[in-house]
């Protein structure tokens, strides 16, 4: 298992405003799988994703990611782990002053010592993979919403991450683009063993998932295993 969470609880705010967002979450994700986290707004999907993805400190419970315990991990340990992950955010979060190519290069240069020429080559290949080889020098402002999201996908994948976390990655995409993104993540899982945890409301992509976890009010209420190779 690449991810194992046990007894995961999480609270937001402090004092009288303190509110529990997650209740005793247990989950395990096999390497190379594509897991979809579903549930209504406020059910805790993104909180689970950010806790497992080292974007938020674990308060209570245990999360083991790639063999590392995240509970009590130092900032340096979390930073090192993040370099082995890929993130796709709902709002693409591209750097507005960098071109598509430069944004993707940032996904390579996070690992020190990568020569500039190799970083550029890898970024060009990743953008080609998402069908944007003719938009390398475009600034985000000059790309459509779908194109921006594809740049964000290329940025997440360019460093060959062991695990990809995607928060509503298809929300801003039309059906074809959404299919392309999910197919790409599936292909990576098959080819490189990349594990994907994907938060979505998008029913269009459920049939691509190996496993569907449904959250309600901070609790996992159903786990649905699907046969692999359904793409």
């Amino acid at each position: 298992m690449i991810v194992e969470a046990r007894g995961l609880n999480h609270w937001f705010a402090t004092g009288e405003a303190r509110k529990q967002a997650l209740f005793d979450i247990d989950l395990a994700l096999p390497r190379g799988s594509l897991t979809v986290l579903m549930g209504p707004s406020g059910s805790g999907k993104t909180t689970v994703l950010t806790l497992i993805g080292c974007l938020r400190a674990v308060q209570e419970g245990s999360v083991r990611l790639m063999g590392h315990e995240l509970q009590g991990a130092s900032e340096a340990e979390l930073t090192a782990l993040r370099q082995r992950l890929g993130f796709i955010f709902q709002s693409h979060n591209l750097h507005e002053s960098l071109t598509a190519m430069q944004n993707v290069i940032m996904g390579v240069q996070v690992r020190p010592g990568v020569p500039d020429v190799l970083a550029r080559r890898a970024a060009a290949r990743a953008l080609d993979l998402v069908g944007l080889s003719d938009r390398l020098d475009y600034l985000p402002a000059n790309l459509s919403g779908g194109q921006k999201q594809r740049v964000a996908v290329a940025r997440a994948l360019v460093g060959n991450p062991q695990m990809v976390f995607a928060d509503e990655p298809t929300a801003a995409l039309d059906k074809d683009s959404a299919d392309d993104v999910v197919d790409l993540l599936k292909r990576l899982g098959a080819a490189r063993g990349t594990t994907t945890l994907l938060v979505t409301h998008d029913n269009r992509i459920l049939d691509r998932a190996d496993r569907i976890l449904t959250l309600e009010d901070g609790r996992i209420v159903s786990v649905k295993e699907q046969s692999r190779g359904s793409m």
Partner: protein
Amino acid sequence: MSRLLQWIFGRLPIGWMQLTHKRGRFFAALSGVAFANVLVFVQLGIMNSMATATLRPYEFFNADIMISASDANALSEGGNVARQWMLQALAHPDVTAGLGLFVGDVPWDRGERDITFTTFGIDPGQTGFLAPEIASDAALFQMQDVALLDRLARGLSRDEAAAIRPQTPLSFETKGRTLTALDTFAGGGGFGGDGFMLVSDQTFLSLFPDRSSAAPDHILLRLRPGADVEAVAKNLRGLITDKTLRIRSFAEAAQEDLRYQQTQRPTGVIFGFGVLIGVLVGLVIVYQVLSADVADHLREYATFKAMGYGPRFFLGIVIEEALVLGLLGFLPGLAAGTAILTLMGKVTTLPLAMTPTMAITVFVGTVVFSVLSGVIATRRLAAADPADLF
């Protein structure tokens, strides 16, 4: 610039790209930094001009030790010193010469605007006590009612000053006498008087009949070459029987005068606060520019943090931005500061000018405080979880 920064930092020059992405905002930030620089330059320039103006008259004389009254905090302030103490000092084996220095303000009624000369009366025969430019004219003002005028005095036109020569003297009435200026020297207007004038001690006493030749304002001493000035001053403090006198090296007297002007006179204290306020306002502007930039890009920084970039990366961006803003904001600030000081100098005739020390100090200060501001502004980023910043 982009390639230079990429070469320096070994990565994409994100700070530079970020700053220049929105041109209007970038120029506003540069204007802010330049304005902060100008503010500090002007205040420092005024403070420096006070130092230059205060120390300038000391440069007219060539002395090792100065004896003054206990309340003589400045060259033109305080009581008199009895000439008999000069005679006592001359008994010291290392003291080779002594000179009584008289100081007083002499007005020149010019109709629309008076000129007040801070006037020094000395024995013109003692040329060893005079700076070379003045010593060469000492023979001229040995004559009664003859003066050397400050050609840089406020209110005296440059053409008028240039015309003053032994062949074409300038005469004017003051204190019921007619003074004749036979030549000029370079002084300059200060915060007290409009300029300087040198006359013989006899002429001085004619202008100030209530003053006595036995009681000059200060006594200047020259020592034999190689003598230890501090040691002799200490010996003289023991030798001279009036223990209230201030017996100091000439250089120390000048520095004490400067300290007095800057820390005890109202103008000096006001100028000092001006520098302090200028620096504080400058700091606030620089901090505001950097922290606003960091706040604007917090979401993008959080994304980088989520990707695995560490605190050094963000510090690198901020330092890059601080260097860019510090350098590119400094250059127009330097140009504007120099222009303003030059203009102010012309209008006021105060010695206001940009100096290399001021320029280097302000540049280093700008970059250092820009970096510190950036570091402070990135603290929130360092402390927060990336998920809290989206």
